[in-house]
């Protein structure tokens, strides 16, 4: 079974969104919480083996590794109806169970210590498939386990599987109010560096935007975690739908992301989804055409990342866009919609290379009924993402100036001698932001060339 993908769920947040993701996949493929194929699921044009494998008794088992340093969330999963879904050997909770205390350094250190056991699981899982395509990592960059241990695993994955793709679904913390975790900016910057350097593709899930969407679009005053996680799982299942329903194009992760990501570091993707409904809201049913879907996907209010369209005298623009449209669509509509979007200049693109809105059509699961004929997911590479990094750095800079809360870090190996790691990471993030900003200009084509040209 070629092009398998192993999902790694890390920490509290990672496991929560991971669980929602598997719930969604099970529903879409007609797999019961116990992993059995539902009797109605006979349609059979879907590919289950990208994310699942079949045990000897024909049960479908997710290619998923659940990791956490504290037992709370995973215990919750193990008490849910889905307890029999996962391979129990793939569930790993640190034995001391103390968690990472929202400390990146703690998580990173624990990850180091436990790496042997963790990679035993991952290696076994990797050997399970015919030709593993890559890993998907679900985590949050704000806490301790997902960010710290996640960073550690990212680094090691790259060394151990140099040919495999690494995609992450990274939840970015709220930046517009006082964080519940004080060292959140530290954690974020330290993780961002790893994401920039060790991941091939990061789908940014901005908690600020998720909250905003949940309140605005779903008319919820205080969205619950479960609701936010559902949004995330919608994005995750949507973005993997072309892998699960094979068609002429986008049948593997690489073809999906290679056209989205032009250069190694510009791999932070924003996402948007329409139409959004949660379980108990009755949103008015509108006639959804391809053009409607594509237009709505370009509206900032549907984008799951809060980004600025302009900052510091720059006009941000799209590096690339991929729209995955699910449902019964007349293929001839696509071209007309694209024409309309270009006519109206609804999307601004980079000036230094060819770019377009790519559209993938994907089947909708026959087992899930929705009110909407068509739904759309956008994965886009937008230079405006730098403003998100900018906000994180702002918070970080404020903290680091006072060297606030660094004591917790100093206790751990990586920071014992000095705080260089902080500076390195901050620099790396700065470099990332600079590159994104440079990508708005025509001369990005010669980016990083300046010193060599001077030297020559």
């Amino acid at each position, binding site marked *: *079974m070629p092009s398998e993908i192993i999902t790694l769920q890390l920490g509290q947040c990672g496991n929560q969104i991971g669980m929602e993701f598997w719930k969604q996949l099970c529903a879409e493929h007609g797999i019961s919480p116990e992993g059995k194929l539902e009797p109605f699921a006979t349609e059979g044009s879907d590919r289950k083996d990208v994310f699942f494998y079949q045990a000897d008794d024909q049960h479908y088992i997710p290619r998923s590794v659940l990791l956490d340093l504290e037992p709370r969330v995973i215990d919750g999963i193990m008490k849910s109806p889905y307890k029999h879904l996962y391979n129990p050997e793939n569930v790993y909770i640190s034995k001391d169970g103390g968690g990472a205390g929202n400390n990146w350094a703690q998580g990173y250190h624990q990850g180091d210590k436990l790496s042997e056991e963790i990679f035993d699981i991952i290696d076994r899982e990797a050997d399970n498939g015919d030709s593993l395509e890559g890993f998907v990592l679900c985590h949050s960059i704000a806490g301790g386990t997902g960010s710290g241990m996640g960073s550690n695993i990212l680094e090691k994955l790259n060394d151990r599987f140099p040919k495999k793709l690494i995609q992450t679904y990274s939840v970015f913390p709220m930046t517009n109010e006082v964080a519940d975790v004080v060292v959140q900016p530290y954690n974020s910057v330290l993780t961002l560096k790893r994401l920039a350097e060790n991941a091939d593709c990061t789908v940014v899930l901005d908690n600020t935007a998720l909250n905003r969407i949940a309140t605005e679009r779903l008319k919820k005053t205080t969205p619950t975690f479960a609701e936010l996680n559902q949004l995330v799982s919608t994005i995750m299942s949507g973005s993997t739908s072309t892998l699960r329903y*094979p068609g002429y194009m*986008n049948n593997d992760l690489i073809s999906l992301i290679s056209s989205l990501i032009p250069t*190694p570091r510009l791999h932070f993707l924003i996402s948007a989804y329409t139409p959004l409904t949660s379980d108990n809201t009755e949103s008015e049913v509108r006639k959804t055409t391809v053009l409607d879907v594509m237009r709505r996907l370009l509206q900032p209010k549907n984008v799951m990342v809060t980004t600025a369209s302009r900052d510091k005298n720059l006009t941000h623009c799209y590096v690339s866009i991929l729209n995955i449209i699910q449902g019964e669509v007349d293929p001839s509509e696509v071209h007309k919609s694209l024409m309309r979007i270009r006519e109206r200049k609804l999307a601004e693109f980079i000036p230094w*290379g060819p*770019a*377009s809105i790519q559209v993938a059509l994907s089947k909708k699961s026959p087992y899930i009924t929705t009110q909407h004929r068509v739904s759309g997911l956008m994965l886009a590479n937008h230079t405006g993402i730098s403003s998100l990094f900018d906000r994180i750095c702002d918070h970080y800079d404020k903290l680091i100036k006072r060297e606030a809360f660094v004591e917790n870090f100093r206790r751990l190996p990586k920071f014992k001698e000095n705080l260089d790691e902080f500076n390195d990471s901050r620099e790396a993030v700065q470099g990332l932001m600079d590159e994104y900003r440079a990508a708005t200009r025509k001369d990005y084509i*010669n980016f990083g060339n300046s010193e060599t040209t001077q030297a020559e």
Partner: protein
Amino acid sequence: MAGSQLALIKNLCLCYCDNKPEILDKTVNTVSHLLHSEHGNIYQDDIRLLDKIWKHFQKYGRNHEMLRFGQIYARLNKLKVLKVRLETLQFLYALADTASTEHHYDSISRPMPTSSASSFDIPSFSLLSVQQGSSNTKENGFSHNSSHIKSSTSLQKLLHYTNDDENSLLSKTHLHSTINNNNNNNNNNEIEHISSLKRDNEESRILRELLFGMQGIETPRLSTNDTNIDRCTRSLITRFLECGWLYEKIRKIINTPTTSLVGQAFIANLSSELREYHRLISVIEQQENIPGMVSLKKLHVWMCTPIQRLKCLAAIADSCQGKKGGQLLSILYMHSQHGDSLQQSILYPLLYNCTIPIRDMIVEWICNGIINDPYQEFFVSTDKMISEEKLWYDKYTLRVPMIPSFISMDQAKKIWITGKSINFLRVVCKDRTMLQINKTPASSQSLFQQQRSTEFQDMIISIYNETTRYLRSILDDKYQMMDHFKAIKRYLLLGQGDFIKYLMDLMENELNKAANQVFYHNLQSLMDAAIRVTNAQYESEDIIKRLDLRLMYVSPSELGWDVCCLDYKFDGPLRTIFTEENSLRYMRIFNHLWRVKRMEYTTCGVWKQLMKSSRQFASIPEISDMIHVCFTMSNEMTKFVQGVNYYIMFEVLECSWSDLLNKLMEAKDLEQILEAHDDSLLKILTRLHLDGHETSQELAKQLRCIFDLILNFGSIIQRLIQCVENELQARKPYQQQHYGTYTKTVEPDAEVRRFHTILKPQLKTIKSDLHIVKKAFRDAVLKFLQQLKFHPDITLRSLSFRLNFNEFYKVSSTSKSTS
């Protein structure tokens, strides 16, 4: 009597009496008496009334009573005691009329006449009466004529009988004797009597001659130049002799041998018309024996319609000469589209009878699929040499000239397809089910009178529907046609992406070899492996069995990539839909799609390698700019290939597929299925610029050029990565020494030297190669976009829109460089 009138009569009589005043008065008296006499009408009315009574009998089919009535009437005539004979008859007729109303319903239940007079109508001649209603006794065509004729001949006999009995010795006209009886002026009548006798003798001589002449027999004694005959009579004679000429003409045509069923029917019909004509002549002949019954003028009146009839027949026969089958019918039909009701009435039985053979052929063909056409008259012809595989295409052809003009092209095609479908079912599908068709064959006239009845159309449509529905169900259920269409889309048109991707993964090494070193069996096992692990494994066994590979013609410069094709095997009736020709088309399409996929595969591979290597290469800052250039180039190429791919997916494959699906859903018969399939294939070929059009060939060439550049770029990247990896490998000892883990000392100088002498020159060539490829690629893309702009196919033009969505490439005739 008005004075002027009297004067005129006097004048006339004066001329008549050769200016002898002694007889003038007498003559005037006689004339005025005659003029005033009511009795002149008696005979006339008598006859008319009799005629009515005959008809009355005929109407109710009482031939026997009619005979009896005739005898009684004859006796009544002889008695001469009854002065009010006419009145009595009238009374009787009135009685009969009232009595008959109660029988009226019986008559309705009998098959009623449907057409107007169509043959030479004897009673109308014999009794000089207006034709009103007399012809109504005929149902259609000839079958009824016989009874009709019987009745009229018996009438003739009766008339004879009457006359003979009454005045066999006198043998002079009844009329005169009656008038004589009534007029007591014997002397004058004597003179008139003799002169009229003279004239009668002359006239009957001419008449007798004429009767021969009218049958096409030469009449040397009758010459139009005969000065003894006055001009008026001469012109009449000419007119009658024309009949003879027309008769002869028709007879000749009848005697020409024909090899045509329709022609035979036509000739049979003509001869029966002539037979009728003969009958008419013979009736006249008999009448002629009764003095005073026939005169030239009477004959003229009687012959009026028959002459027209003959003329019309002769004209038709003339135009139909040498024609057969549907052509002949078309001509007849053309003639029947005439405002003249006489002509219509002539043509109706002709068409009716001539259509029967064709009707039978049609019925045989659409019900049993058999062509019973010994003389090649049917509009469907068959070629026995054609093989089973080509049955649908070539075995049965439509002979367009043989389609009767009253059958529309649409109907003809439906008939053609229905019969073909039956044969297709029998021969190709090996299905011998007899379709139960609950439809009685349409009557012959419903073929050419389609505006009056839809019987024929209904028959065709219902049998067509029945047959094609059955064929469709056989194709759908027994041969799973739709499944094969879907399989084609999934495999030959690369819809089963996971399978295709994995197939490429597996075959890559093999296909990178030169084409003549690629072996079928190697690839075949790889394909089987790909089927086993991808979603193709869930495909039905039948479909998997059909999946195959084909290696195309090998030329030395080609790689395995260029010659390897997926193939899908068909058999049985499917071979008709997916012909060898279509298979070749699919192969061409596959080859193109495969090539584009390979490009996608290559660009993705390059991207991945760059992505993964760039992290390792971070330790060599000297190449970072080069890596960046590689990335932007890779991006450009990826976007190009993806653009082409998206275009192929939406504008070409998906659009034509949804189109095809719709058409297949609607398609009723195999012909429509084939048409839909053909259309969609052609559309795909055009949109993939594989249609052989000049601009398309240019495009294809340019695209290949671009693809070559992409492959070239791929190999440069390989070289770059290889050489940097070598460098990294070479650096290892020094680095390890640096960390104090390696014992062997490495000179830093050597490190620098190696960097400058080995890596740098290598990088330099790679850099210049990259630069060349970059420039060439841009130029090639620009040229490609330029060419697309002028392609006649609008869909293909939209490819340039996709490839240049953000208008990065400045397509114009002057600008060549973009950055």
